[in-house]
């Protein structure tokens, strides 16, 4: 094994059981076999078992930062646990060189009645630090958490954000060669998240090699040099971050096509209703970035009500809610008079990058905000064009050119050579 290779997975497989009762039975059976010196059933899939990881192989070298992405249940977290040694693989093997640390479950082991300071000792000990190591880093940990003034208060009075800060600060001050991270930066406020990202970059510069499970593409492209895209326990793609993100979004789109029918509907008041919501189809069946999108909404008012307000929220699987569509903003009023009507929304040149987006509909009374109904409509699927140059979520149709400094107020206000002074 090359001395730069820190992690090597060779055909790693791990199986789980879908049902609790059968899982109990299999666990008992396997244990009985092990007690008499036998082997548990590793190769064969028994009824209700499935491969959560199936033939996963990769190598990771010092200086790389690996991102693991994929839809829920695709095996990322299981892979991380196998790497962490929590359970051994059922097939294949994993070789790790160097100390392994986990930024996983950052608040683990906190006792609500103990103070922040006392909990630092506990959670530090769980992560393998002894008293001396914790005390040596105490100042740093406290400073990093940014919650000095609450440190001698029982943590049951902490806000969830403060708990994350404290937990992260302790876990982040370990010094492993290989650092496993599982969605830890999904919480906390933005400022703290950026602080953590910057801190991780520092650790990478100091020789730490992170493996990172996330659904946040922004953090992924900020930190990672390489991604593995998982789907159903296998590695679908191994390589460049941007390409990996595109593959991941294709996987989500694929899942989105299958999930077309999983619409949810909550009715609060039958007097007014959204009868249907339809994304007008394109000739070749898929909308692409930059296409015009037309959405039709059927409204049915059964009894007279006050003026209505309609809102369609566009949700991205990776970024949450990203936009709303509202007729009222365009000056289109919806009266509460009984009848059936159809509204049309037109989004010219849609800036969304490939992926599956959810359309969530809310119909409410305009003045009282009393809801009539909520609906998760069909997905808005954006397909990939050939070129995949844009990243993240949107394309802003940016146009660039060289310009004359005299056009620019910043330059006009200064003497010659002002361009060098741009901070």
């Amino acid at each position, binding site marked *: 094994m090359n001395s730069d290779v820190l992690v090597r997975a060779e055909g790693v497989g791990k199986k789980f059981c879908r049902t609790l009762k059968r899982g109990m039975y299999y666990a008992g059976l396997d244990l009985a076999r092990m007690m008499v010196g036998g082997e548990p059933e590793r190769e064969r899939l028994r009824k209700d078992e499935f491969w959560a990881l199936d033939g996963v192989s990769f190598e990771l070298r010092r200086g790389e930062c690996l991102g693991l992405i994929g839809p829920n249940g695709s095996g990322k977290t299981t892979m991380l646990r196998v790497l962490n040694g929590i359970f051994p693989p059922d097939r294949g093997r994993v070789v790790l060189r160097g100390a392994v640390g986990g930024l996983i479950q950052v608040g683990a*082991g906190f006792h609500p009645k103990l103070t922040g300071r006392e909990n630092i000792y506990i959670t530090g000990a769980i992560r393998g630090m*002894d008293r001396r190591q914790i005390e040596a880093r105490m100042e740093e940990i406290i400073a990093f958490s940014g919650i000095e003034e609450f440190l001698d208060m029982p943590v049951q009075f902490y806000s969830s954000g403060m708990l994350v800060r404290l937990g992260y600060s302790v876990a982040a001050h370990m010094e492993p060669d290989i650092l496993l991270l599982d969605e830890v930066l999904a919480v906390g406020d933005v400022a703290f998240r950026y602080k953590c990202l910057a801190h991780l970059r520092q650790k990478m510069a100091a020789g730490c090699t992170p493996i990172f499970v996330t659904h946040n593409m922004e953090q992924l492209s900020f930190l990672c040099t390489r991604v593995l895209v998982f789907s159903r326990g296998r590695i679908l793609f191994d390589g460049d971050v941007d390409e990996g993100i595109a593959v991941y979004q294709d996987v989500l789109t694929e899942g989105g096509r299958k999930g077309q029918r999983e619409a949810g509907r909550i009715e609060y008041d039958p007097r007014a209703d959204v009868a249907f919501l339809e994304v007008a189809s394109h000739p070749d069946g898929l909308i692409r970035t930059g296409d015009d999108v037309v959405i039709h909404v059927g409204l049915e008012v059964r009894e007279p009500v006050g003026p209505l307000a309609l809102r369609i929220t566009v949700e991205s699987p990776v970024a949450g809610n990203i936009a709303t569509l509202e007729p009222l903003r365009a000056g289109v009023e919806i009266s509460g008079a009984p009848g059936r009507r159809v509204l049309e929304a037109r989004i010219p040149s849609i800036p969304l990058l490939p992926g599956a987006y959810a359309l969530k509909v809310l119909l409410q009374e305009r003045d009282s905000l009393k809801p009539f109904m909520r609906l998760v409509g069909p997905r808005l699927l954006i397909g990939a064009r050939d070129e995949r140059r844009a990243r993240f979520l949107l394309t802003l149709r940016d146009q660039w050119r060289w310009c004359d400094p005299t056009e620019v107020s910043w330059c006009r206000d200064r003497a010659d050579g002002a361009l060098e002074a741009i901070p």
Partner: protein
Amino acid sequence: MSGSLEAALSSTRPVRIYTPGWEQKLGVRIWGLMFADLWRSRDLIWRLFWKQWVGQYRQTWLGYFWAVVPTLVAVFAFVLLRRHVLPKFQTPIPYVAYAMWGMTAWQFFSSSFQSAMNALQESGHMISRIQFPRESLVFASIGKNLFTLLLRLFAFGLLVIWLYAHRADVQWDIPRSILLIPLSLAPLFFLAVGMGMVMAVFLTIAGDVGNVTPMILQFGVFVTPGVMFPSSPRWPYQLLGLLNPVSGIIEGSQDLLAYGRMTQPEVYAAMTLFSLLIFLVGWRFFRLALPRILERF
């Protein structure tokens, strides 16, 4: 393949290789790993114990007094029973002291056993997410019971002083080694941890275990000579004392209290060896089973 592996092993960084059942394949060497893990986690055990202990008593007014209450209540009930209900029997030391000692020892065993059994369940999600020696959860959970034992022994000491101060008819030569006698209860620790580790695994596989065990333990008071009443030399009651390791250990220590020596040292020795064996077997079983059951948390 193996050549490159040796190259990896020869470098200074620790190398870990995880293969299916790698711990099983270590054979006898697993014991080295187990004791190394135990030594490595001494700090963690102390912290986990301290967390439980402080957490339990921080928000109380009477604090440690609560540690002694269950024993006092049970002893009070035993004294009433003996006076008014049970057939007469003799104890080598005044009955109230006898029952107090027996109950203290029994409760130490039964609560340690239950703590050890429940230690994995009570640790929540971290057990399947963070890598640390899981035994430390079990050992730490016993710490609470050890401390409670100390408090109860202290209460026992107060009781003995009270007996001598207020009862002229006490016929009991207290051995000079009385302060060392509690050490004779040590096998109970090993027995409880060993059994607890085995049951912790079963509890993970089937929740039923958690419902049955407390019932059995409650019943245990009545079939463990030395707790409420001494063992009987008559057949078949004799069997209770001979087959029950807890009884053999408690009665041995009661002999020490009464006479300063054991009347049946061979029984005590056998039960002590048995307890140590259960401890080692239980611990090994725990290690063997853990990788297979951790996915169930």
